């Protein structure tokens, strides 16, 4: 239906220079090219199963086409949908980062984009600060450097040092809040640079609220099933923090054997936000835990192909993991537990 609709309005669109956009480069014929409604939202392309393939990198260069005739023609079709841009953030020790951490990002992106509702534009790795005081946690500067080396070959995953630079441990909800504010600020800057006239944009946003919604940046927390399960452990999370995190959205990678649907069912908070919890089943068991990697390293065993080569080299050069480093924080209470119980300073 949508295809037919596009063909019908094609003569009109041609006058808008749409034909000059190199659609062929995106594997599309002009007749079926997606039409940009707004810089953050675009029509679901009838020929592409995944938004990523018909996405034009330089949105600004696209001609802003929106005529009321075309809008009413299209909006009467139920197939008019927007893809929302999503940023994924993973918090953790990354002590050290392994191929499995990186796989989680790839799996999450594939899953979200497969829904045709989201387009994942960025992945953020946020290593925890030294104040977390976990046993065997080596210095943040090393963990950050290893994550940097590991993400060098990725064109969408990057490392952020804000959390790792905080002297004290920062709650995950606060980390997510910080990055959400940054995203919103970046969005505002971009909007100000935009060449499209404000009046036109505002009119559109009023007329089509879903366009407005698609514009808001989304930040999803990427985690393993263990984190989702830990939401239920007393004193580990503040209830309002859990509420805030699942409110943003959570992507949870689950391994065979674990039953995350059960946690969601058993927790009222998670159940309330079940639509914001995306469960991704990992069919290929891939249990490269950082704990195992550290164990192998201090026993002098090979960890090649479990971590990117550049990380293996860095670990060797800096002599990072030893029996001694594993004893770090051995008798110290984990920061979150110390903060929320009587075991430590308030």
């Amino acid at each position, binding site marked *: 239906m949508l295809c037919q609709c596009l063909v019908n309005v094609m003569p009109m669109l041609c006058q808008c220079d749409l034909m000059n956009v190199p659609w062929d480069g995106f594997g599309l014929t002009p007749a079926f090219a997606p039409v940009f409604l707004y810089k953050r939202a675009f029509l679901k392309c009838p020929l592409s*199963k*995944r938004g990523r393939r018909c996405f034009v990198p330089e949105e600004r260069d696209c001609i802003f086409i929106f005529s009321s005739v075309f809008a009413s023609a299209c909006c009467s079709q139920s197939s008019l949908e927007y893809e929302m841009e999503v940023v994924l953030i993973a918090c953790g020790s990354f002590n050290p980062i392994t*191929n*499995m951490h*990186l*796989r989680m990002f*790839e*799996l999450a*992106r*594939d899953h979200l984009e497969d829904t045709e509702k989201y387009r994942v534009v960025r992945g953020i790795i946020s290593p925890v600060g030294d104040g977390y005081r976990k046993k065997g946690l080596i210095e943040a500067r090393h963990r950050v450097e290893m994550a940097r080396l590991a993400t060098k*070959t*990725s064109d969408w995953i990057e490392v952020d040092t804000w959390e790792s630079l905080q002297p004290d441990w920062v709650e995950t909800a606060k980390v997510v809040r910080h990055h959400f504010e940054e995203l919103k600020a970046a969005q505002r800057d971009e909007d100000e640079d935009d060449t499209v006239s404000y009046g036109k944009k505002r009119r559109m946003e009023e007329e089509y609220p879903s366009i407005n919604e698609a514009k808001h940046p989304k930040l999803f927390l990427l985690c393993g099933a263990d984190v989702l399960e830990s939401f239920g452990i007393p004193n580990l999370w503040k209830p309002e923090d859990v509420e805030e995190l699942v409110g943003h959205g959570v992507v949870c990678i689950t391994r065979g054997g674990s039953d995350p649907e059960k946690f969601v069912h058993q927790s009222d908070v998670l159940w309330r936000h079940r639509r914001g919890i995306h469960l991704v089943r990992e*069919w*290929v*068991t*891939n*249990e*490269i*835990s950082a704990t*195992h990697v550290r164990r192998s390293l201090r026993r002098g*065993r*090979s960890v*090649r*192909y*479990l971590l990117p*080569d550049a990380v293996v080299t860095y670990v060797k050069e800096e002599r990072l993991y030893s029996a001694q480093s594993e004893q770090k924080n051995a008798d110290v209470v984990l920061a979150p537990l110390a903060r929320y119980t009587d075991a430590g300073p308030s």
Partner: protein
Amino acid sequence: MAAGRIPLVLLACGSFNPITNQHMRLFELARDHMHSTGNYQVVKGIVSPVSDGYGKQGLVSAEHRNAMAKLALQTSDWITIDEWESDQPDWTETVVTMRCGTIRSNNCVTHLNERRSGPSPQLKLLCGADFLEGFRVPGMWRPEDLEELAGAYGLVCVSRGGLQPERAAHESDALWRHRRNVFLVREWVHNEASATEVRRALRRGLSAKYLLPDDVIDYIGRHALYTDASESKNQGTPLRPLAKQYQPGGTGGSLA
């Protein structure tokens, strides 16, 4: 080379369709294990992709499989590819590949060390957990081949836990006789990035990054290697080992 240790060459046969990080992990695990016995010094690892004549479903041409293995192994200073087996027009019994491998690895090690006084290197077959299972299927292996493989060469088998490999080694009389030549390596981290899963992800347009080296992913993309069409190759064709040996049973002798 540590004094008194026997130099050892590990050879892995299989489809390598495509080669994955897991294949290379097998080599790393086996080398660590053999070193920890105190008796061996692993001097070389050899990847020997099977010939196109193997007739396995979805098997892309040896030319591509070899090229991918070369790309994947360019960062390793001890694992290399040997194209002898894949150059054969027909499928070759694993034992025959081992015989040829011995001659070439002898040359290689002698050449490397520039001395002939030390002990000559041994060659052992490196295999995954499913490999030993094949021995249990009656008629799958020629008894004399198994005897030669276990007796004259030896096996290093990386298992993923469970008692199946131990049981298979216990149940086969040939393997029991040569039990000192059969090394079972326990892999504590389950990492099932099998080539089958990789092909599945690729033909569905999903990401396979971090399961195999980036260079191999690029190569696959450039040559559009794994598709629905490539997966249906050899569909319905009996595996060459079964046809050649006129015996019923499953697959046999490969790392998949």
